[in-house]
């Protein structure tokens, strides 16, 4: 049965509050398959909350989230099968080897040992880490750990990858490596990537961008469209202008 290809991730009317503090306010967007989309926002914009809701670490309070058409509240298992995640905090088990970390993750997706080892070899080669497979995770550098986490997230062949500020705390070379690897995934394997960051120089001209500020969605579209919409010279100026205008509006609302 052929159906219309749904959006990789569609979020509708999503709001979330921690007690009185509103972390997300009526956020709606949809991202297309096989695109590199940057979720751009300052610290406290709501990026991590959004990721926690998409991965169902938190339950949805209001609104809906669909991954390739599957509602995460209705059928979380099916939705999570299609999702690969790299969280902002380090999530490798430092006492285990790289391979053991990967096969543990594979088991959590119902993938048996033999198949898991084959897949581990493939994703580690893809991330340029084949020779580190049997080393303890503890012995890796920050950049290598991130690449292992990305490899692990790829193990079950997800169609949508979420990365929450994956380059935080890394040096310039490691950052560039990781961005290059992830962009290659989108180009070669047609994986859809949602990349959360506050580092504007990680945005490329060909990307889609979602601008989130204090829980509100300020803009969503291709880079040139957002730049034009803000009447700015480049994405950095456009982002600054959007944030400034939002600040003025909020000040107006309060007054």
């Amino acid at each position: 049965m052929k159906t219309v290809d749904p959006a990789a991730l569609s979020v509708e009317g999503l709001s979330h509050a921690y007690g009185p503090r509103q972390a997300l306010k009526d956020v709606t967007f949809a991202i297309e398959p096989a695109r590199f989309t940057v979720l751009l926002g300052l610290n406290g914009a709501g990026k991590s909350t959004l990721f926690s809701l998409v991965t169902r670490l938190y339950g949805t309070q209001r609104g809906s989230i669909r991954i390739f058409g599957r509602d995460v509240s209705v059928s979380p298992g099916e939705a999570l099968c299609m999702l690969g995640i790299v969280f902002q905090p380090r999530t490798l088990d430092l006492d285990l080897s790289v391979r053991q970390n990967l096969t543990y993750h594979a088991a959590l997706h119902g993938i048996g040992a033999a198949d898991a080892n084959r897949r581990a070899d493939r994703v580690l080669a893809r991330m340029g880490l084949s020779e580190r497979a049997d080393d303890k995770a503890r012995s890796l550098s920050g950049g290598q750990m991130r690449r292992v986490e990305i490899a692990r997230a790829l193990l079950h062949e997800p169609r949508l990858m979420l990365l929450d500020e994956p380059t935080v705390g890394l040096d310039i070379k490691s950052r560039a490596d990781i961005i290059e690897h992830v962009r290659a995934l989108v180009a070669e394997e047609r994986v859809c990537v949602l990349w959360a960051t506050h580092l504007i120089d990680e945005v490329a001209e060909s990307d889609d961008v979602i601008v989130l500020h204090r829980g509100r969605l300020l803009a969503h579209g291709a880079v040139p469209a957002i730049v034009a919409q803000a009447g700015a010279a480049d994405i950095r100026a456009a982002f600054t202008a959007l944030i400034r205008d939002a600040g003025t509006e909020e000040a107006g609302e309060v007054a």
Partner: protein
Amino acid sequence: MSASALHTTPRGFSLAQYTICLKGIVWREGLRFLHQRERFVAALVRPLVWLFIFAAGFRQVLGVSIIPPYDTYVLYEVYIAPGLMAMIQMFNGMLSSLSMVYDREMGNMRILLVSPFPRWYLLCAKLIAGTAISLLQVYAFLLIAWFWEIEPPLIGYLTVLPALVLAGLMLGALGMLISSGIKQMENFASVMNFVIFPMFFASSALYPLWRVREASPLLYYVCQLNPFTHAVELIRFALYGQLNWVSLAVVCGCTAAFMVGAIFAYDPSRGFAARRGGAGADA
């Protein structure tokens, strides 16, 4: 595209995949346990200190009359051995839930919770893994205790196994339930004081309940209501090839209740996750 169209092609997991997931979780807990040798040593030293020092000192003070399941006078060391076995399991249950709090702070827990398997299954698998580790510890303790003249009948080593599994599940589920309510590691120390010590001392682990009754009828009833008492008695009877039905019923009932509570608490829309970040969000 309709919702019903989507649901006609669900991607469920086969029984084999559920088994792979369980094996993966048990295997990882086992590896972690092996890597943390000091944890194993600590788990053994704790009850052995009680056995070698405390029991030796109290041997002359406390007389134990003939009570079931014993059919003769027993040494005090022999009396407290089942209580120490349960203590090993309680510490293990609390420590593995402590590691869940740690994992949650560190982020490892997220990797478990974003697995597409149902969350109740993941928590049960984690519980089974923790119980398996506690069995290793208890049998290592029994081996050492054998040289200390704690020599239950050989068949007892086999008949005690199901009792240990049940007690391990109950104490692990209790730890899991408690861990769900704790946001930070620091808070855990006080829970240890408020849960482990009262449960251990207000039980039949260190003294027979008839002696407690002589001292304080109220304390006797508290001990009777303490699930840990029943874990101890289930183990004590099973170690001598007997079954204590009341304890069996209490342990099974408490395991179920604690587990349901833990699953509820780890449900993203209801439990700790919904409360995180501030009170009042638990709508």
